[in-house]
Each structure stands twice: as C-alpha cells, then as structure tokens.
C-alpha cells in the first residue's frame, strides 16, 4: 500500500551528503512516519492529509468503499459543509485511480451533492489533479528560479532524454511521465525533483540514469 516505504534506496545527490551532517536520509525524511497511516485514515484530524501518488493505479477502482469510505466519512466531519471537503475528496479519488477523469469528477459531485460542472471548474483550477492518466512514476522537475540557476533545465532534459519522452507524455512502457514543476519549496537543494510522493534533492543530470534504473527495478 505505502509506496514511500517500498523505496529502499537513497537519493544519489542527497543534500545531507555534505560531510557536516550526521543524520541518515531516512531520519531527515521521517521515513518512519511516511506511509504509516492506515487506509481508513487514522485520526480524523489527519484523514484529509493522507492521499499519496501511488505507483499502483487502477482507473476502474471503486470509489469510496470500505476503508476509503470510512476515511471519507472521517474527513467529512472536519469541514463545515460538503463543498469544503471537495479538495481532499478529489485527492482521494486520484490516490485510487491515478487521475480524475470527467466520470470520476461526476462521482465526486454526486457524493458531495455538488453539480458536475462545479466540480470540473474546481478540479481544473488545480494542477495536482491529473486530468488524464499518467505513468507509473510521475516525475516533476523543478525549473523555477533557484533550480534554474543551478541547472534545472539540464536535469529536465536528462529525464526527457533518458525516458525517451516529450514533456507531459507517458513513455511507451507506461512507466514514466515527465513534467516541469513550479517551485517545490526545496530551493536550497537544487535541482529538486518530485517522483510520485517523494522528493529527490540535489539531482544532477548524471544521477538521472541511476534514479530511473532503480525505479524500473521497483516497478516490475
């Protein structure tokens, strides 16, 4: 279930490798916290914080049944009206299905008693809701100012070349979708790349083949 815990390897260019820092990458990241929440959402205060970008995506997964229904019911109690629960509900739908299709938006609309057009209007405003399917690994490369100054464009090119894709396309094997991200708020560790739920820091073009190889090995 929890994808973050399945990744056994460190980020090759990880920012902690400065020689002045004694903690492990897992300690910095708080790996013991990530992916520990039960699918039903745990305590209601955190129920809407749970959504991941999972590698396993099932576009036909039933929405809001079993544990997911329980999680939805919990998060719904944290908002004064149904509309306010829209963003976390969309995120949960995406967690299951990998993207939010028009059909998924309609289901969410029905669940929250909102009009389908309204839900589409909101969902299309936010970039994190994928409007079409993405690869098993969604690779988001920051090319904004701080990363750009330190070679973000080269890292983006390396990901595109090594996956043989164009920006926003999914590779033929269905594994990789590479997109350009706006600032990921880890500017001191350029170039920052987010792959599914996980941040990779200090990535240089030469790290890219290694990262992709490891992802491939894990994707089998």
């Amino acid at each position: 279930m929890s994808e973050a815990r399945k990744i056994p390897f460190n980020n090759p260019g990880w920012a902690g490798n400065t020689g002045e820092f004694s903690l492990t990458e897992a300690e910095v990241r708080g790996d013991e916290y990530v992916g520990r929440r039960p699918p039903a959402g745990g305590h209601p205060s955190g129920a809407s914080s749970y959504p991941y970008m999972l590698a396993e995506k099932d576009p036909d997964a039933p929405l809001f049944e079993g544990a997911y229904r329980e999680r939805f019911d919990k998060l719904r109690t944290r908002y004064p009206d149904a509309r306010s629960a829209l963003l976390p509900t969309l995120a949960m739908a995406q967690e299951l299905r990998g993207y939010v299709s028009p059909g998924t938006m309609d289901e969410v609309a029905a669940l929250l008693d909102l009009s389908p057009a309204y839900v589409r209007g909101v969902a299309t405003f936010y970039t994190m809701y994928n409007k079409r399917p993405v690869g098993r690994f969604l690779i988001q490369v920051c090319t904004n100012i701080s990363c750009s100054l330190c070679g973000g464009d080269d890292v983006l090119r390396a990901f595109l070349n090594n996956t043989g894709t164009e920006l926003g396309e999914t590779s033929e094997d269905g594994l990789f979708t590479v997109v350009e991200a706006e600032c990921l708020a880890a500017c001191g560790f350029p170039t920052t790349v987010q792959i599914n739920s996980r941040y990779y820091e200090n990535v240089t073009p030469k790290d890219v083949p290694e990262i992709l190889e490891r992802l491939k090995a894990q994707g089998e």
Partner: protein
Amino acid sequence: MAYPYTHEKEVRILSKHFGEPEARTLDGWKARGGYRTLNRAFEMGRDKVIEEVKASGLRGRGGAGFPAGVKWSFMPKEKTRPHYLLCNADESEPGTFKDRELLRWTPHQLIEGMIIAAYAIQAEQAYVYCRGEFFETTQILARAVEEAYEAGYLGQDILGSGFNLDITVHCGGGAYICGEETALMNSLEGRRGTPRVKPPFPAQAGYMGMPSTVNNVETLSSVPFIIAEGAEAYRKNGTQESPGTKLFCVSGHVRKPGNYELPLGFPLMELINDVCGGLKEGRTLKGVIPGGSSVPILNAEECADCELSFEGVIKAGSQLGCASVIVMDDSTDIVKEVRRMVGFYAHESCGQCTPCREGSAWTEKILRRIEDGRGTEEDLDTLVEVTSQMEGTTICVLSDSVAAPVKSSIRKFRGEYLARIRTGEKVGAA
C-alpha cells in the same frame, strides 16, 4: 544540527531542534520543554496573550510583515459566531523553503503556537493548509496532531481550561495563488483559489464568512517562545522595527545554501560571504533577490550595505518578503531567469483580473522573444509600460509580482537585454 549546514552566527530559537528526529515526537518535544506555555497562556488570559505578542513586535513571516498581535486584535472580542484560525503552510514562493523544515522538524512547536493563537482569538476550529506536494511532510505533521489529541492538548477542555480546539491538516491542490490569504480561504471552502476583494477583511468575514485569522507557519511557530520568555526577551534579537530572529532561505550560487536562523537586520553580504561560504571560486556577485521571486532584484552595489530587516531591504530598494535570498553570480543569464520567473506567474495567475491574466502572458511572450534573440529595443519600453499597468490594478498582488522582477531588471541590467536584442549574445551564462 540544522539541515544541511549550520553556522556559529546563527541564533537558533525556532530552529533550535532542527536535525533532532526525536523532537518530532510528543515525548521528545516535551523533553525539550514543549507544551509548557499552554497553561501559562491560559493563566494570562486572551487579552494579555494578544498584548504580549503585540509587545514582542512579531511581524508576519509570510511575506507582508504585518504585526501578528495587531492582526489577532482585529478579531471580534464578543464571540457570536464560529471563529477560525488558518495556518498558511502553502509554501510556494520561489526561493522559499523554510516552512517545510518547520513542519517536518518541529511540528509540535507549530501546534503549540496554534493552540495559543486559537485561544487568543477564540477559535475552536483551526486548519493547517499545507501545500499538496508536501506528502512526506504532512505525514509527520498529521502524526504530531494525532499525538497532541492523545495527550489532551487538542480536543475538548484542553488542560482543564475549558478551551476546545480541533486542528485539521488540509492538503491543497497545487496552486501558488492559494498562499494568498483570501484565495486560501476560498480554496479551503472547496472553491477555485481566487483571491477575494478586501474589505471585508478576514477578521470580519473570512472562512465560511466567519471571523478568521490567517498566519504563516513561521509566525505561529514563533509564538511559544514569546509566551515562555516574554516580549522583551524576544526583542533582544532583531531591530526596533523588525524584532526577533528569522529563517533565511538562501539558494542559488552560494557554496552552502540552506536555512539559517539569524537576527533580523543581519547584513546581506555577511550572510552570503560568511554564513553561506561565499560564491563559487572565481565568481563575482551579479545580483540578489532578497525576498522570493516577487520582489525587485538588487544589483551588487545595492547589496553592499543592505541589512536584512523589513525596513533595511526597503531602504536598499526591494522587500524582505519571506527572506528568501536568491543569490546570482556573474554566470547568471538575467534575461532567461526573469523570463522563467514571469513564466511562473503567467502559469499561476488565477485569471480573474484582466491586467494580470493578459499582462503576465503577454510579458512572458515578449521576454521569450528577447531571450531567443528576436526582440527589439521597443520591446523593453513595452515591457515597462505593460507591467506598470499591472501594478495596483488587481485584487491581489500576484500581478505586482510580475512587475517587480521585470522593471527592476530592465532598470539595473538594461545592458544585458540590449546585448541580447542587438547581437543575440548572452551576458553571463558561462
């Protein structure tokens, strides 16, 4: 140890426990003196808490620098409707990466600050609006909130004070504009993240139309120290107008980028050359963006005497913003970098105000043309004219954020634009 570097000139109050994984746990936080300020705040009473925070001079750390205690005092004294406290953790100003560190190293510090703030403004519901990309970080925060519930620091009748508080960790959907406080409230209501016209201000009609206060993560994290040690102790650091310490996020062309906690008013060049280990071998300074990508660029000359306080950076010709110091050495291609920043704003414009929606896209197009060597000298006049019409003409300041880098760079680095236009030649970029 701070992550990934630390420096002896730092004054570590907020970041004191960065790099200590145990500090993330409730027990670890209590062992470090955590949660002791709650009883003290409840004994002081709401008015005194607000007075103390006012007296400390703590200014909002989200960019605008509005005094936090004054903001709290705008909330109605008589509570007739629900009040809300909203913590802005939608960190996404390019160059800013401090809130992520606060959330993942010291989540209980934030929760403690939120309890005090919520008590002061009589809010029984609080939300932490986290940026959606922070998957890992929000897991740490969510666990901390859960622990605080288990220990009775959240929920009903906290520590027998009669005060109730629920905190909910909420994840955004990936939109820069939701860091603007009224857009944040719209987004939290399940709407498109478009800013609202002010007035009414959030304290009158905010989230769900109810009195609300929006504070940044760093602002709220600063509160426990003020309650524990008092306003006077807080004022021992910083300047008269900008008291306290601040996390400076340094990125770009320095040897040791990272977050450094320093007293406000710290000299910019000392931060670059001493704390951050200086520029790379053989490089010279071209410019600095001192407060995230939406403030004017300073050239090397202006940086020389710049002091990093709210007033000091204004004096130097820019703004402190969230103290996101982006350092650019002589290899920097200014035209490209400005185009990249403007491209960001064009992407993130919510589209409700015409000057911003049209102006940001238009400005990007012209800059792209210049960058590709197809520009004309008239384009520079057009850029200045278009961006001038984007200042002060829209609901929020995203539009002004386009004007800041464009106008300041054309004024200070005109030669680079002209070289690109006349010969297609890049200045810098070596």
